[in-house]
């Protein structure tokens, strides 16, 4: 299998499983229980928090554990909106956010919030001037993702953070696709809330985190016991949290090296595709991108058919975000970039990761070539 869908999920690092196993086997105490056996589980959770804070460049108290990137996004967006709803009811986001942010904003619209969905340019990046113009005295949250999951395009998060800070508006960035991939700690970006997810960085599914600056007001969305200092109730997924922290620190230590390696592999792959598959087009190539992602449009063939064709040749790729697969709608991200519905439907996403190498990329390229040629030969358009 040549797995090229690392933006959907990643294999769990063996060392991560190793770190988790003690908490699945022997250290199964409830971290909130009042005896020494369970205190070991509590200590494991707090050490994990420490480790993540170190890799992110923040303080341990600013890390909240959740169950998924989606929950982190929901907590960030709903949490600040509810906490600040009396101060104002306007939220600024972009048209290209992950559904975890986008559909949450839509849900808040039903609760009486007004939401601005900023457009992006043809390269897939939001324009800072446009964002600035959208801010009002009513704006209580700006949420702009760090790197888009479908195209890899990086948004001007640092600039947004600086701009929004001056106005005193909380700023959330969904860093699910960049945490553990960038050669710098995510909190350095200056956002007030940052989402990350374990299974995107060679950690477990079911464990994720949200950084929340201590001064940022936030209501909980899961209420109950006093876990996470009342900011997120529910018995902690101890093994998952330990795995998340271990995975994050491993990723962070590899990030610089991997960044360069994947960029070389990705760029070479793109060049071969552009050189030999007529009318192939790289989406987002005009903007800075994370190095592991390429999104390619082909004329007159359907993305899902390409993906099945690749699958039958042992290559795993996707049409866009995994959670909307099956969705008959063309990608909202590509449409926002100005692609036609047909172009969007003829696109696939290839996302590289740690096991990716030249040999695999060459094989993937051959399989892609063959598949596109075959589908074009039976296409009616």
């Amino acid at each position, binding site marked *: 299998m040549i797995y090229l869908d690392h933006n959907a999920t990643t294999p769990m690092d063996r060392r991560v499983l190793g770190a988790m196993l003690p908490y699945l086997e022997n250290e199964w105490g409830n971290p909130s229980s009042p005896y020494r056996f369970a205190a070991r589980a509590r200590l494991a959770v707090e050490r994990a928090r420490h480790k993540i804070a170190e890799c992110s460049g923040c303080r341990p108290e600013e890390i909240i554990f959740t169950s998924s990137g989606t929950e982190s996004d929901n907590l960030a967006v709903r949490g600040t909106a509810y906490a600040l709803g009396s101060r104002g009811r306007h939220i600024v986001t972009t048209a290209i956010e992950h559904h975890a942010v986008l559909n949450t904003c839509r849900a808040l619209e039903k609760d009486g919030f007004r939401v601005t969905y900023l457009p992006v340019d043809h390269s897939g990046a939001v324009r800072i001037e446009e964002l600035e113009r959208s801010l009002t005295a009513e704006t209580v949250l700006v949420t702009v993702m760090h790197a888009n999951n479908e195209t890899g395009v990086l948004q001007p998060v640092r600039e947004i953070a600086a701009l929004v800070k001056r106005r005193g508006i909380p700023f959330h960035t969904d860093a699910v696709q960049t945490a553990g991939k960038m050669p710098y700690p995510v909190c350095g970006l200056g956002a007030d809330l940052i989402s990350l997810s374990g299974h995107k960085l060679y950690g477990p599914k079911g464990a994720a985190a949200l950084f929340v600056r201590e001064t940022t007001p936030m209501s909980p969305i899961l209420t109950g016991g006093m876990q996470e200092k009342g900011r997120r109730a529910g018995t902690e997924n101890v093994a998952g949290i330990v795995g998340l922290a271990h995975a994050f620190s491993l990723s962070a230590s590899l990030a610089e090296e991997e960044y360069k390696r994947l960029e070389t592999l990705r760029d070479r792959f793109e060049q071969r595709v552009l050189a030999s598959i007529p009318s192939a087009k790289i989406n987002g190539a005009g903007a800075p991108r994370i190095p592991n992602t390429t999104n390619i449009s082909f004329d*007159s*063939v*359907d993305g*899902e*058919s390409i993906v*099945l064709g690749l699958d*039958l040749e042992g290559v795993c790729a996707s049409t866009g975000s995994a959670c909307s697969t*099956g969705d*008959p709608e*063309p990608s909202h991200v590509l449409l926002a970039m100005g692609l*036609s*519905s*047909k172009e969007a*439907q003829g696109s696939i996403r290839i996302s590289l990761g740690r096991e990716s190498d030249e040999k695999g990329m060459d094989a993937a390229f051959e399989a892609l070539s063959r598949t596109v040629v075959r589908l074009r030969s*039976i*296409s*009616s*358009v």
Partner: protein
Amino acid sequence: MGSVTSKENAEQPEYSGPVLFYNDTVVDHFVNPRNVGELTESETDGYGLVGDPSCGDQMKLWISVRSGRIEKIAFKSYGCPGAIATSSMLTDLARGRSVEDAKRITDDDVVEALGGIPERKKHCSLLGVMALQAAIKDWEAGRGLKKESGA
């Protein structure tokens, strides 16, 4: 190369939930579509064009009718695997049948012949049926009739 559903179900037959994935037959029709191609102008007695690429799928279908029977059929299809496989199966079901019979082929027939198709792909099976109906109408509405009467 088999589809996951059938392979996995064979291993663990206790699962009897909804069809989640393309089965072997669907994948086979996707990889080796039957009757793919075009008929020449002279062969064509009826032609149907349905769907819209900007809506995700499109199909062209050609039939050649002799003595009220579909003698030749060909298609080209743009769309998802479900669209390609159902198009292919539809042409297989229609080929050799009388036009009257072929008219009665439904999307359910196509899905059944394929051994099922994921729920969210059911609408794809309409494409082939509609293209065939269009081609038959085209044949009935003149071109075909003219040719048949001229024959």
